């Protein structure tokens, strides 16, 4: 009885700390964003979010996110598949490299691409001849977004695939199933929820990316400005209503992702349990 009471006290103290922490660091700023966005009334909010450049920035963000998600899904599937289902030399090195973007600062990632594809690079003339511009253009932004988000999907998949082992695949292969059938009927049902969850995380991270994109974008309004960059620009120009209104768009994206995430987690749990 005594310990239970004590446990109860500890529980409530911890819960209170968490709630206060969340309130100070998350809820308050969110409220502040919204209140600032609506400070000058609904009409100026609407004007800010329907501003040509704001819409363009939002579309660019969605575009970069889309490409990052698609490419990273494909890459993540291949990478985790080969890490989990085969044994080969350098497997450890490969899986360490996949996690690299998590540890490297996005700014550095951006600079790496500048060095690789910029004017001083030997690749530049070749790409220029082909009419491909990467730095200070949309491809650069997509590249940067892919770089910072590429571990997300494989990191979700690797544990699930490892736990599954290779028996079922081997059994199917012995019965004459081809690689595609095996993937479709045996591997995919198993990793479905983990994969979707990874995609959601990847999308969330891709939408908010600032550092690497900032280095590569060149900040051309309406051309290479993603939402986070556009917000920064407005903010620097003392357009607080605009900045916070645009932030609220990003916030809506984030909330959609959050809801998806909760739904996926529930579904995945139900199917597994």
């Amino acid at each position, binding site marked *: 009885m005594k310990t239970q009471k004590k446990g109860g006290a500890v529980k409530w103290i911890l819960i209170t700390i968490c709630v206060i922490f969340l309130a100070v660091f998350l809820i308050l700023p969110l409220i502040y964003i919204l209140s600032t966005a609506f400070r000058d009334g609904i009409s100026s909010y609407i004007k800010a979010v329907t501003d040509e450049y704001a819409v363009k920035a939002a579309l660019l963000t969605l575009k970069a996110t889309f490409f990052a998600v698609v490419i990273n899904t494909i890459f993540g599937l291949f990478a985790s598949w080969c890490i989990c289902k085969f044994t080969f030399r350098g497997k450890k090195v490969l899986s360490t490299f996949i996690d690299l973007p998590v540890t490297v600062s996005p700014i550095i990632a951006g600079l790496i691409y500048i060095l690789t594809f910029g004017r001083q690079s030997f690749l530049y003339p070749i790409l220029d001849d082909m009419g491909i511009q990467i730095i200070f253009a949309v491809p650069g932004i997509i590249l940067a977004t892919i770089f910072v988000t590429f571990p997300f999907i494989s990191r979700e998949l690797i544990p699930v695939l490892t736990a599954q082992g290779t028996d079922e695949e081997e*059994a199917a292969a*012995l*019965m004459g199933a081809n690689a595609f059938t095996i993937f479709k009927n045996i591997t995919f049902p198993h990793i479905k929820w983990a994969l979707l969850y990874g995609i959601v995380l990847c999308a969330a991270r891709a939408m908010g990316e600032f550092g690497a994109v900032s280095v590569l974008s060149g900040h051309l309004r309406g051309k290479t400005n993603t939402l986070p960059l556009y917000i920064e620009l407005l903010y620097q120009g003392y357009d607080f209503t605009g900045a916070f209104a645009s932030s609220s768009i990003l916030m809506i994206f984030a909330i959609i992702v959050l809801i998806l995430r909760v739904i996926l987690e529930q579904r995945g749990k139900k199917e597994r349990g």
Partner: protein
Amino acid sequence: MEIQNSSSIELRGINKSFGSFQASKDINLTIQGGRLVALLGPSGSGKTTILRMIAGLEQPDSGEILIDGKVVNDVPGSERGIGFVFQSYALFRYMTVYDNIAFGLRVKRVPKKEVDSRVKELLKLIGCEGLEKRYPGQLSGGQRQRVAFARALAPNPRILLLDEPFAAIDAKIRLELRSWLREMITRLGITSIFVTHDQNEAIEVADDIIVTNEGRIEQSGSAAELYSSPRTPFVVKFIGNSVLVDNYYEFRSFSRAEADTVGVIRPEFVEIYKTSEDIRYSRSADEGYVRDIIFRGSSIEVKVDIHGNLISAIRSINDAPLEIGEKVWVFVYRMFLIGKDGVRLVENSALRENSIVI
């Protein structure tokens, strides 16, 4: 159910290493079509490796695998006509029992109607009718094993490979499933190899037993052969309930051979007499003390201390009861001696003298 043609299997000089570890060393074996063979050996002795190489899931480093006299080293596993039951069954957990069994037929593009009739037939064979809509997670261990068996059989393989088919099942159902499996395989007449590390299982289920140890095949033959004429020290020790004795020459009527020879005594080699009982070869019997008495249901196992060795012996339920600590006479009929030049069976010399007298 139709009788399937069954294939013969032969391995010639197979070697296989994983990195620096050699899992198979010069494996040679021949299995006639229709036989039910056990691969018996301790854990890590390379049983699964042999099975996986036959199935084409693993490539040997050297040597040849022949099925029906044809070298199949370069034939993919799916074209070798093999059904494989995995140690953990490896049922497809996101497919129903029906879909699991149908899988092998569907990938071979068998018409729907045929698939259906074959699956129904197999479900009946394994006695799992009515379970076709369940998922593997909703089956008992025994049912899972039966479904795995049916799934492996569905495409009409000519060879069936089973890796420790009873390992994941509790003791009571295991006994039931053993005889079930033996009956099934005998009825189908399909060449089968099953892996086990339980000698009772091997003896009970298999026609022939192949004993593996440290990547090598020690000996193969019927259970009776392995019992009566083990050829290697490992087989002597591994088969039967063997006890090793270093000081075998201290037993009466057994004389010392070469220096580093070891004796092996099995329960069926000894007889225990109470001191009050009549004993035929009294001069050749050793004095022992009862250390442990274990009730085995149909018999009683007695552990007796003789010259510092704890020897197992079997006594009938009908014999006069013994007590722990009691002094008894122990007559050792024979023992195996493991020397430098192999294994030999040595009879108690009293028996020889006696036969001369008669």
